[in-house]
């Protein structure tokens, strides 16, 4: 953990302070990945495990996720915890659209990956949340353990750290 939290770049000491040499992408990714604000979005069983991940035993605030928001406008991560049905799909899409960029999605549990246990012979279940919104990290399980959720969030942090937004922009301009 020690290495992940250190600031990306080199600091050169000078007499009146210091000079920082780094990449803009690295600094922004560093800041973004360590302050993910999840949206409180739970539809069914997985939401209880998400609550467990927030409690004192698993404590997701160790990794900087504790600022759970009830409104999508303040959140940049949506953990889809639970089955999405046809009636809920437009609502989920709207919530996703209301979130400010950049935004990330974790699909928690089998239902959000493929419909899971409700795949066969159901008329109302959306078979995979990626039919509705793009997903960054999938966690299998029915429901996944809180540790699995923490693992997925750390994986998402890793993913964010390797984004190259400015590099791509510069290449586009050239």
């Amino acid at each position, binding site marked *: 953990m020690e290495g992940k939290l250190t600031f990306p770049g080199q600091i050169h000491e000078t007499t009146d302070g210091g000079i920082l040499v780094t990449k803009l992408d690295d600094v922004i990714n560093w800041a973004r990945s360590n302050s993910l604000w999840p949206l409180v979005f739970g539809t069914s*069983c997985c939401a*209880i495990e998400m609550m467990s991940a927030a409690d004192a035993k698993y404590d997701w605030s160790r990794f900087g996720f504790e600022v759970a928001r009830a409104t999508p406008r303040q959140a940049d991560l949506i953990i889809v915890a*639970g*089955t999405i*049905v046809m009636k*809920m799909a437009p609502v989920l899409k709207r919530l996703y659209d209301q979130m400010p960029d950049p935004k990330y999605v974790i699909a928690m549990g089998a239902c959000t990956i493929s419909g899971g246990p409700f795949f066969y012979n159901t008329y109302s279940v959306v078979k995979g949340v990626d039919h509705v919104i793009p997903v960054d990290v999938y966690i299998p399980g*029915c429901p996944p353990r809180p540790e699995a959720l923490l693992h997925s969030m750390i994986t998402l942090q890793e993913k964010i750290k390797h984004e190259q937004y400015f590099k791509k922009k510069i290449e586009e301009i050239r």
Partner: protein
Amino acid sequence: MRGLIGEDILTEEGEFIINMGPQHPSTHGVLHLKIWLDGETVKRIQPNLGYIHRSIEKMSESLSYRNFIFATSRMDYLAAHVNNEACALTVEKGLQLEVPQRAKVIRTILSELTRLQSHQLWWGCTGLDLGGVTPFFYAFREREAIMEIFEETCGARLTQNYMVPGGIMYDVHPNFQKRVKDVMIQIKGKFEEYDNIMTGNVILENRLKGVGYLSKEDALSYGVTGPTARASGLSCDLRKSNPYSAYDQVQFDEILDTGGDCYARYMVRMREMRQSVSIIEQLIDNIPEGDFQAKTKNVIKLPKGEFYQRVETPRGELGVFIVSDGAASPYRIKYRSPGFSNLSALPIMAKGGKIGDLVAIMATIDLVIPDIDR
């Protein structure tokens, strides 16, 4: 949300229409309430369901009598053991199968542990809904201890599928008795803490007393069951009136209150937790030796007919209605879920109150939305 675009939010009578949910932290899931307001006073409420309707009943029609039970753990996920037990009991009723005594006692212990953890989660979330974050952490501390017992017993924390037709799937872990006893001692010591932090709290009393009144007649007419109905003085504890598993072997009180308001509902659940501990303590030292599962055929076929079983979940009466045509899968399954009927009484409880009280009422009915929608 759909159907609201272009609709006037101000009615001709000057009432203001707002939508609560389906994405709202206090609805405990994806419940959508359309609320007509006059200032801050609630004039009318229309619950809008189906945001987590997963077609469990249709799906079960194509599953075998062993397999359909799994879906019920996802229905009321805070009471998976009780839901599974209800299904297992219904199938056993159809097969006229006598369950071994050991399985009955273990089922009862696990059902009561389920009730305990469900009420603890409810207690924490009620605190959260009313503006206090601390109860949430206190409640989950003890709840995790129970989850560990579940995990050690059947390998799952939430969706257990441990009750099967004929008994229980595997025998309990050798640590089971010791662990349950330890947790009971831990939990008993914490009840005082719960009371200190919440029950006697003046803010809580002000928010709950005299709020969301439900009369006994309305409770009966709306089919309200469980602690919500018992707080209105309606005796409806199926563990007493129609005992199943090992409930006829234990001494416990049916908790009744006559207040009918949110505070009465709160107190009923707080007192029920103590009763659950007492039931577990009576049984934990008296688990009989023997088989944990009765012999059943590989493919279960129920005789032609209709079978109904009622059990008491932490939220009220769950009814499982199986119609069999003699085949290896049910012809029709109906789950009479407790939350469904309890929710139908929400409009009359909240009518005339303030919108802030609506949150308190929803918290004390203890809604689990997938249980309502199925």
